[in-house]
């Protein structure tokens, strides 16, 4: 009895001690990197994961859009917005620790890393259709190029990694911006060759040749002005490729219809971030950024952080410009009967109009990254700088002509064709007109901050002048913008510099 009991007890104990493999973790509710990147579906998923940061709070869903718009002369923050003073972008009061300028760094490097993982691992996976693999790799290459394009535009030189293995280097220094931009050219041209020209609506949001061409045109325009490289011809050439793809792209008759959810993937949209309308996950956050708090939209109210044009912006449109009617409103209604309809003391951005008016669930509006109208304006600008004023004005007026159509069949008087009202035809005057047109046409699409920097490079002092004079609320408020020139470049996040002594900070920070 004794012996048997003892043996049982010891047996149990020894068994317990012996079942050491109980200690090996085999997770059931997620997979690990070790078991992933093996099948075509894994590579597809990994490629989509490289797109994903675009629609997150680091980038266009929140901080990147908010900062570039709020720091421009186009938008002001509603002064009754809570924590007004600490929204650094409005006052350019950011430093190397503020999310407004450091979060985009995180989001862009997430793209770079995930793209590099696809490029390093995807090539070895066998696909039933090798063309699909080539296309996925091209998308990863494109996304890496686009991420470095933005990194260069925001921070100048940054660590340049082009393979997954590179990322193991936590002591990387900054690669000179010229080298970074050379990689952008390399990536975007390579991707342009392999990407499909068109995509079905079921693939809205994925890159096409057109997207790569626009990114290249964007790059060369930026380099030519901001970096004074004079590559205007390349900017014009890439824009022209898009412009000439008339079987794919073109202007809609009605400016508004470009943005309406009913027209997802319309011919004017070259690359967009679609809204999934899945709340709290992958939907765009337009509601909180632009819808007025006073209407109490959604369950948490609106935010209106970048929902108000500056008085200058609102007053700058030519009288009767249809785009002003579409882009703004001064009256709106809440679903909350206690609030009802309100006339706003200040206009509110209403270019992105969700089907549900922003009430009850996330907005279904897509966010445009590149539009056909921008191709026309890039081409016009490059031609003007190349000395072809007439061509420039022709393309500029194509954008104006569409605006005159109003809802499609109107023939409004404004905006009149440039040059028909006695405007100066000097290169500077045409340039200013093109930038002004970009301001009207591309309002609230995250372009104006970069436009001010480009124009400032061509016409020194423009950036500070625009920011100082065009925000009427600031004329009387005790808060002032920090307009020191170094603010044109964003700081390398302090956390990165603290962790990597090889990184240098941008001047001024």
């Amino acid at each position: 009895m004794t012996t048997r009991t003892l043996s049982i007890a010891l047996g149990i104990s020894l068994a317990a001690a012996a079942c050491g493999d109980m200690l090996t973790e085999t997770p059931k509710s997620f997979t690990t990197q070790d078991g992933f990147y093996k099948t075509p579906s894994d590579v597809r998923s990994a490629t989509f994961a490289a797109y994903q940061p675009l629609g997150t709070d680091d980038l266009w869903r929140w901080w990147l859009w908010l900062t570039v718009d709020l720091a421009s002369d186009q938008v002001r923050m509603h002064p009754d917005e809570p924590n007004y003073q600490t929204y650094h972008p409005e006052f350019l009061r950011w430093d190397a620790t503020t999310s407004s300028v450091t979060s985009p760094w995180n989001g862009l490097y997430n793209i770079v890393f995930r793209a590099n993982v696809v490029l390093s691992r995807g090539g070895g996976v066998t696909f039933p259709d090798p063309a699909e693999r080539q296309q996925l790799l091209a998308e990863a290459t494109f996304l890496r190029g686009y991420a470095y394009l933005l990194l260069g535009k925001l921070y100048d030189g940054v660590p340049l990694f082009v393979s997954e293995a590179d990322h193991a280097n936590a002591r990387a220094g900054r690669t000179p911006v010229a080298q970074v931009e050379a990689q952008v050219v390399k990536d975007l041209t390579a991707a342009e060759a392999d990407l499909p020209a068109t995509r079905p609506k079921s693939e809205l949001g994925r890159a096409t040749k057109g997207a790569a061409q626009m990114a290249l045109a964007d790059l060369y325009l930026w380099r030519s002005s901001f970096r004074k490289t004079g590559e205007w011809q390349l900017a014009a050439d890439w824009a022209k490729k898009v412009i000439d793809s008339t079987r794919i792209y073109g202007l809609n008759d009605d400016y508004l219809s470009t943005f309406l959810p009913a027209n997802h993937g319309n011919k004017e949209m070259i690359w967009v971030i679609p809204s999934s309308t899945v709340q709290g996950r992958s939907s765009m956050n337009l509601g909180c950024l632009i819808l007025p708090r006073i209407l109490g939209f959604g369950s948490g109210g609106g935010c209106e952080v970048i929902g108000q044009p500056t008085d200058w912006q609102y007053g700058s449109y030519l009288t009767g410009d249809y785009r002003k009617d579409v882009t703004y409103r001064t009256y709106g209604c809440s679903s909350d009967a206690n609030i009802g309809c309100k006339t706003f003391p200040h206009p509110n951005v209403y270019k992105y109009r969700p089907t549900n008016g922003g009430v009850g669930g996330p907005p279904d509006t897509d966010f445009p990254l590149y539009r056909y109208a921008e191709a026309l304006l890039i081409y016009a600008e490059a031609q003007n700088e190349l000395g072809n004023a007439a061509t420039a004005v022709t393309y500029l007026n194509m954008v104006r002509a569409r605006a005159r159509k109003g809802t499609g069949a109107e023939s409004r008087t404004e905006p009149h064709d440039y040059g028909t009202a006695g405007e100066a035809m000097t290169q500077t005057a045409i340039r200013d007109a093109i930038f002004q047109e970009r301001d009207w046409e591309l309002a609230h699409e995250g372009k104006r901050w970069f436009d001010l920097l480009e124009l400032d490079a061509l016409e020194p002092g423009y950036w500070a002048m625009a920011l100082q004079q065009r925000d009427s609320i600031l004329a009387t408020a005790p808060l002032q913008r920090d307009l020191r020139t170094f603010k044109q470049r964003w700081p390398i996040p302090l956390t990165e510099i603290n962790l990597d002594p090889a990184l240098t900070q941008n001047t001024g920070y």
Partner: protein
Amino acid sequence: MKRFGVLLLCALLPVRVGAAQDAGSIAGTVTAQESGAPLAGAGVAVVGTRFEAATGADGRYTIANVPPGTYRVRARIIGYGSTVDTGVVVVAGQTATADIALQRQAVQLETVVAIGYATVQKKDLTGAVASASGEDVLLKAAPTGAVSNALQGKAAGVQVVVNSGSPGAGASVRVRGSASITANSEPLYVVDGLPAMQGTGSDNPTYNPLNEIDPNDVESIQILKDASATAVYGSRGANGVILINTKRGQRGEDRLTLESSYGVQSIGKRIPVLNGPQYRQLRNEAVWNATKDSSNLPYTAAQIASAPSYDYPDMLLRTAAQQNHSLTLSGGDTKTRYLLSGNYLNQEGILINTRFQRYGLRFNLDRDMSERFRVGTNLSVARTTQAINWTENGGIGASARGILAAMNFDPAMPPKNANGDWNLRAILGEQLENPLANISSVTDERNEWRLVGSVFGEFAVTPALHLKTTVGSNVHFFRDPYFAPRTVAPGASVQGSATENTGYDREFINENTLTYHRALGPGTLDLLGGASAQTAVVDSGPYAHAEQFPLDAIEWYNLGYGATQQQVGSLYQDWALLSMFGRLNYNLRDRYLFTITTRRDGSSRFGRNNKWATFPSAAFAWRVSDEPFMQDRGPFTDLKLRLSYGATGNQAVRPYQSLPIMVAAPLSIAAGQEFVSLRPSLTKANPNLRWETTRQFNVGIDAGLFDNRLTLTFDAYRSVTKDLLLLVDLPRFTGYANQLQNIGSVQNRGVELGLSTLNVQRGRFTWRSSMNVSANHNKVLDLGGQQYIRPGTSRYGWFLDGNESFIVEVGQPLGSIYGYQVTGLWQEGDVCTLTPTPKGERNPDCIPGEYKITDVNRDGVIDGKDRTLLGSTEPKLFGGFGNNVSWGPLTLDVFFNFSYGNKVANVNNVFSELATGFLNERAEVLDRWTPTNTSTTIPRANNARARRMYSTFVEDGSFLRLQTITLGYQLPPNLIPGAHVARLYLTGQNLFVLSRYSGFDPEVNSIGGDSRFRGVDAGAYPRARVVNFGLTVGF
């Protein structure tokens, strides 16, 4: 096996001590002092020797072979105080008589202390263990519905902070300080030998793993504090161990005990807020001062003057009832003992529509199958419902709920509009949702079921060698419904919003222990060996959310009614812990006590290279009072010195953290569609992840003076925790944000003193006092080379983003508040030291009426670089003291607890006292700075003022609380027919708090158990004053 048997045989050979020819003996009777009845089974020992005997059924004993001399003879039995007969003279060949009468003792468990897998006589204890017994300390003196409340202030070195006043609120418990930064710092709870589910490290302040236990069922609570005491729990011992044992049946007649109490609760303190006109005035002023633009002003003068006023806090508060009933049946015969109890608690909250309910059943059984074989079981089932209904979420501003939302809501807005519908939300500013509408209509509950049970068998292989096997399981099921109808803001725009969150967690454990006891040489040896295997599954989900319901009546009961069904989720985690442990106690001549303990644990949670670790400890105690030279010992009845040193671990990190996890990354592909891609986690895998290890040194004294009329326990300790699990940042360009690594260390040093005295004992009058006081100093020693780390975001984000308001810094304690030092207000004529604006105007941070913020780095700008340490949330001293007076049938118990020297971050005032006017504010804001009211500490109205952690929100959290006062009356026997005992009592809880804190209560922890964010008051549910009337009857 054979060899083992031989070994055993050798070990069991009795070590005989030859009887000296010239010896005498001692004999006598042990009786109960009150009744004179003989006491059977009492242990009688000659102090300082190994001579001992037990009394027979007639209470008699004989100790033979005692060498001649003068001795002290001590008799002990559970339920009675031990008594020593001094000066017993033994003469060779004769029998000395020592009759001892024992007094029934209030604190029964003084004599035997649970130490994990075994019990030990308190006198033989070598480690630092605090104990409280159920019957007397917990119940009679301070009846309460929650075990966590009962523990407050009762044990030295144990800081129990009940997180808020919400019914069923959780408590955050620190045994000797916070030993970890990111892993759980809460102690391990072991209930009837089964480790309770971990999870008290949760940052949810309402979560309480002890909620299912009815205090009426608790027999005793022991708190293991030093490394020697906790080492037997190895990798889970570093934060201390709380052993809770429930009552068991006793041999004797069947007993039926009824406990019943009824009480009322009301708010202890009110905080006045602005009325309608005052609020509108503030708002206008705030907008004007920020923009100087009259087109922005929200109200006209007429609108201000005619504003109505509604008292929202008053509308949410009520006087709330609570009742608690329990019925216990127990008894046993010579072979079987049982206890069966049922209990019901219903505690309404003092905010309307909130409550906590508990139903529980317990069945404990022991059966002696034979002289050598005993089996038994502990089973309990409990159901709890905690209806918080949007009164506490730790949110402030737009996400405030409950009392804070009521204080912040627009006081000029009526709760309902002319049609009788709720006004959904304030129209301007923060657009706070109508708190009265939400609390009245939103369902937000936590329903839990716990099934905890174990079966054990104990076999006496020989009288000295015992084998025990326990199989147990712990099953936890929860179902948390949420529903907001369309009539209130959270449901209005989506036509009803419903969520169900369920989970099914289970743990299984098997433990086998062998104990062996024998005399060895001049002392006795006790050995414990054991093996244990535990597996657990955390099975959360499904979580499901739906909106767009055709009607409100279905609520959350059929999510299929919702037209949009979004946000589903589930989570599955499992872990395993394998252990072997051993303990050796050697008692040399009842004077020198040695303990060596070791546990070896293997945990699945750690990296493949570091699965196993060993946690050894050793302790020594010296019973000075039993030394011959102490025989005429002066004032000391009892004196013991203790020393211990050892290592324990912390494995309370989430599973899988060493693996390269892929996480879901949802994105839009095609309009209106979502694709779930997979991406590498931002946290890089670390295959070398290992335990946090705490090494603790303890020195203690236990002393009893003047025949134990004064007993004291003093301990001093120093513990250092190394290999802290910390998320170490990586440069983001690596593709990762951080990696969990074992770096850094934290130190806790402290002293603890516990005292209890019997001040007067004269006839029917007795007066006892007790007090304990502790000081712990926590210090971060190392953070892997960094000087400080930002503690990361708390779950509340927004202003309360941990990065903005707390810091973990080398040389500072955990829970250090970090922010802007305010030294006053700028006044007209003050010289501004800050840089003027580019236009040459005065810096906006020094406009008269603004906070004068210290420009710490003297760069002329107030920004994030000017943040500094604002104080520590760790108290310098804490403890409790009580008095017990009994006079015949009457007893009076008064118990205070206190905390001294800690800071509280009153972040409510970010919205309630910053004069920004986004929300309604406290009445103090009437005294705000204006050009004509400059002698004040409240800044001018300004809605552009940044909401940050200012030193003005950091308040002294010291308090002295009258925790409980109880008046009891023992009814004469059989006044109630058949009742051998009956007692009436009246208890007051929290009747007053002495504190300078401006919020409701300085004892608050809105971010639960997280060591990095202690002492935060973010909309905490106010604590109630309770008056309770109760009855105990035993048949």
